[in-house]
Structure formats: structure tokens, C-alpha cells
């Protein structure tokens, strides 16, 4: 598929359009509103669905194909927060607290970006690895690395033990991994009767979810002025770098085109739920205006609208190079 075509497909998908509609609704101060319980439910549903569907296919996966992508993901969970921290410190000249906070955000995963990346591959009929939800769960560890940096550089940063526990038992991890195991156990036959909910409704519910995320991102975008030019640059350039690293490592770890793309999106994305909560609790000195606006107001829309086509074009090109043609 050509780059222009993928830009078109992405931009004109219901998902991105709903996201844009959400942004517009907020800009014109509309009273459109997705009630919070619905938002929370959709978010749970999307992760659980991805977990289950991965699990149903997981029987076919061998450890041989899984271990290298897993190692690569764990490497990124350490490396991305580290270089994010160094860049914010050296280029952005921010203090330790804010730099570590930003590192925790960009080091972990935005579940909506992850889910939208999966949906894009599905709509392009690009197969991807069944164990992908596991990689997303592993990538959550980036939060912890970010907080370790804070503790290490600042002497104190709340109780890291709690954060480790909270991350391991966190919503995203439980839903992705719990769904995976559930899907693995029930298999195709057990999945069939629940498929109308977990497969058929997926894309439509994601559309509605993105309508809400557009509104959320736009509200956060209003804080734009407060974050300064460095963060705007960081929030758009950093994802591209991380995305390219993720795609490259994924490809060389033997992942399919679809899988490498999704891993790239995991790397490129910045957490907007789990990281903010963990950072607020452990690095209260850091300014939420900065890290939230960057991850939610800048990087999220950037990835969904501009990043996806870039990452996909790069993945296609790299796969062509490595595997001698798509």
C-alpha cells in the first residue's frame, strides 16, 4: 500500500474522524458528553476484548517466536524512559522531577493508541501476532523505570513497592493478561458465542470511545500554552523516534509487518491514565500540566492522526527491505 493511500485510509477511518469530531465538539464548547461510567466501561471492554481475542489465537504461538519480541519489549521498557529522561534533562533543561515524570509517561503505553493500532491492522487485513497483548502488558513496566529514575536521582520518590504492585495488578495488565488466558482456555469454540460482543462490536465501540478521547485531548490541549515549545517538539518528535526504534527492533525480532507496526505504536505512545496516577502519587513535585498536556494533548492526537501513517510507511519499507518484498 502506498504512503498516500495509508494516510487516506487512516485519516478517513471512522476512528480518526470520531476523534476529530470529539476535538471539534470541545472547541465549539458543545455539551456532547460520554458519561464517565460509559467511558470506563468501553476502556475495560476494549482491553478485555483484545486480550481474549489474542488468547483464542495463542494456541498456535510457540515460545521460540515469542521470546525475542518479549526481550525486545522489556529492553524498550528500560531504554525509552531512560533516553526520554536524558533528553528532557539535557535538551529541555527541566528539573529531575519533571524529567522523570515525563520519562514514566513516554516509557509506558497509551491503551487507546494501542487499541487503535490493532484496529487499523485489522481494517487493513494485516495479520499480527497473538501474543501482542503480552507485549503491551510488559511495556507497562516503563512506568516503574521512570519512577526508579526519580528515586535514584532525588533520593526519595514515595514507595516504589506500591507502584510495582499497582502496575502488575493494574487494570490494563489484568484485563489484557486475564483476557489472554481466558481466550486461550476457551479456544475457538468457546469464543464463538461471545464473539458478537467481543469481535463484532469492537470497531463501533472503539469509534464511540475515540469520540470521547477527542474531547478529552482537546480539553487538555487548552493547556498548550503552559507547556512551552520544548514540550510541543518533544511530544511530536519523541514518539516518532520511539516508534521507529520499536518497529525496527520488532522487525528484526522476527515479527510480522502488522506486529512490528503495533509494537512501534506501543513504543511511540505515552500513557495517559496509569502513568499520571502513579506519577502524581510518587513524584508530586512534577507539574501535571506538563506531562498530561504532552501525553494527552499532544502525543495522543499526533500518533492517531499523523504518526500512524508514518509508522506504517516505515514498517512497510523496512519489511520490504528485510524480507525482500511485502
Amino acid at each position: 500500500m502506498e504512503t498516500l493511500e495509508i494516510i487516506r485510509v487512516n485519516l478517513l477511518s471512522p476512528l480518526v474522524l470520531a476523534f476529530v469530531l470529539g476535538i471539534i465538539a470541545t472547541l465549539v464548547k458543545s455539551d456532547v458528553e460520554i458519561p464517565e461510567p460509559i467511558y470506563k466501561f468501553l476502556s475495560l471492554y476494549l482491553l478485555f476484548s483484545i486480550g481474549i481475542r489474542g488468547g483464542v489465537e495463542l494456541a498456535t504461538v510457540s515460545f521460540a517466536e515469542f521470546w525475542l519480541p518479549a526481550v525486545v519489549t522489556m529492553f524498550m521498557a528500560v531504554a525509552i524512559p531512560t533516553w526520554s529522561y536524558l533528553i528532557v534533562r539535557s535538551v529541555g533543561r527541566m528539573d529531575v522531577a519533571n524529567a522523570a515524570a515525563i520519562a514514566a509517561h513516554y516509557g509506558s503505553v497509551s491503551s487507546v493508541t494501542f487499541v487503535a493500532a490493532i484496529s487499523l491492522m485489522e481494517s487493513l487485513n494485516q495479520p499480527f501476532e497473538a501474543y501482542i497483548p503480552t507485549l503491551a502488558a510488559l511495556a507497562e513496566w516503563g512506568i516503574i523505570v521512570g519512577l526508579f529514575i526519580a528515586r535514584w536521582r532525588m533520593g526519595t520518590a514515595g514507595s516504589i513497592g506500591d507502584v510495582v504492585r499497582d502496575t502488575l495488578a493494574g487494570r490494563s495488565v489484568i484485563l489484557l493478561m486475564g483476557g489472554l488466558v481466558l481466550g486461550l482456555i476457551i479456544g475457538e469454540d468457546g469464543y464463538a458465542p461471545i464473539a458478537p460482543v467481543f469481535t463484532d462490536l469492537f470497531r463501533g465501540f472503539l469509534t464511540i470511545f475515540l469520540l470521547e478521547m477527542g474531547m478529552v485531548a482537546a480539553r487538555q490541549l487548552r493547556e498548550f500554552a503552559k507547556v512551552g515549545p520544548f514540550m510541543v517538539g518533544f511530544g511530536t518528535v519523541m514518539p516518532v523516534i520511539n516508534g521507529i526504534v520499536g518497529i525496527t527492533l520488532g522487525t528484526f525480532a522476527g515479527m510480522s509487518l502488522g506486529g512490528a507496526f503495533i509494537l512501534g505504536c506501543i513504543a511511540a505512545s505515552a500513557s495517559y491514565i496509569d502513568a499520571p496516577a502513579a506519577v502524581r502519587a510518587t513524584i508530586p513535585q512534577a507539574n501535571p500540566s506538563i506531562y498530561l498536556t504532552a501525553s494527552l494533548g499532544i502525543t495522543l492526537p499526533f500518533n492517531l492522526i499523523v504518526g500512524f501513517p508514518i509508522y506504517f510507511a516505515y514498517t512497510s519499507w523496512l519489511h520490504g527491505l528485510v524480507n525482500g518484498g511485502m
Partner: protein
Amino acid sequence: MQPVPLTLVTIIAEHVLKEKLLFELRQIGVSGYTTSEVEGRGSRGVRASEWQGSNVKIETLVSVEKSERILEMVSREYFAHYAVIVYRVPVEALRAEKFA
């Protein structure tokens, strides 16, 4: 049953502090508390929980002495970095023995 004087302490804080504050209140030995979801605006700008929309309000009926310790705890632990306010008002309650 005769009403007895007690102090109602109200803490309004960003949501991320909820469990910590309740833990500290139990440490201080309050007999109970009531929490509710509120929204608010104060001197601080955006907070981590803000886009998720809510603060927590914690109310606890205590003796004057405990109210002192709560005010002291909140100001010592949380004023520096968190969005939190605390105030108290004298009230009359029944069943004093409960709130010892």
C-alpha cells in the same frame, strides 16, 4: 439522648490522595468517615486526576484534639505538593461514645 459537642473536619483533596488520607485518618484513630465525589477549582492548575474529573471530600466527626492532629497531618504531609484544603466546624452529635 443529649447531643454532645464534636468537631467536623472536612478535607477536599485531589483523588489520588484518597486512600492515603483515609489510611492516615485511621492511624490517628478516627471512629469513622464519610467520603463523596466532588469537583472543584482552586489555586492549583491542572492536576493528574483533573481530566478524570474529580476530587474527593472526606468528612470525619472527631474530638477537638483529634481535629488538631488531622489539620497538622494534612498541612505537614500534603500542603506542599498537592491540591488539598481542610477546614473544621464545631457541631453537636448524638452518640458521643462512638466518636471517642
